[in-house]
């Protein structure tokens, strides 16, 4: 993905430019969140919950970003 900065997931350690979740200073892939973190993010945003579901379901990188953008077009 062009013009994206690689960041590190603090759970799995992978460095990539995939869409991630920042919970304050912590950065993780959507499917690397703890159960508690995922529940908190889901409760705060239905859209974020759908993004987590998509990532857990296997969407990564450009495919996940495309899905995120499509979710916002629905709103």
């Amino acid at each position: 993905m062009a013009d994206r900065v690689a960041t590190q997931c603090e759970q799995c350690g992978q460095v990539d430019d995939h869409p991630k979740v920042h919970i304050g200073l912590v950065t993780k892939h959507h499917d690397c969140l703890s159960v508690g973190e995922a529940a908190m993010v889901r409760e705060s945003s239905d859209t974020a919950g759908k993004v987590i579901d998509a990532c857990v379901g296997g969407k990564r990188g450009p495919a996940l970003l495309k899905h995120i953008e499509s979710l916002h077009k629905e709103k």
Partner: protein
Amino acid sequence: MAKATSYANDVLDQTLPNGASGTVTIGATTYTLPFRLIFLSTLSTAGSQGTEWATAAGYVNSGVAGGATGGVALNGLLATAASAAAKANTGAVTVTNAPAGTWADNEVHDSTATTQKRVVFKGTPSLAKTVNLGDTCTIAIGALTGSEV
């Protein structure tokens, strides 16, 4: 002199109100609810607000409608009443599909149209988070705090 706890709680309830509508008045100044949390790419100081994220992707800059919208409304996300001279968010604050940039700071302001009023900010040190387009930015439950001593 130190503040009595009951007075400190009252100050916090004026500073971080949980309501969706109405106003709070502090001294001679009236603030419009809901209060909103905005995301900044540079640090705020007591004298000036940092640079708010521009309207892009899933974020709306509060200047778009002059403060009446923008950022994330905090109604329903804060403790109803302060306790023991402290108050915090009881719900996470989230922006999905964030625009690319830096997440340095956050600030709370009111919803007064055209002249939104600043309330509180996190300030230094910078969060210095690199945010890519499409990221999710969340302030965890209990991380948005106010205290009076």
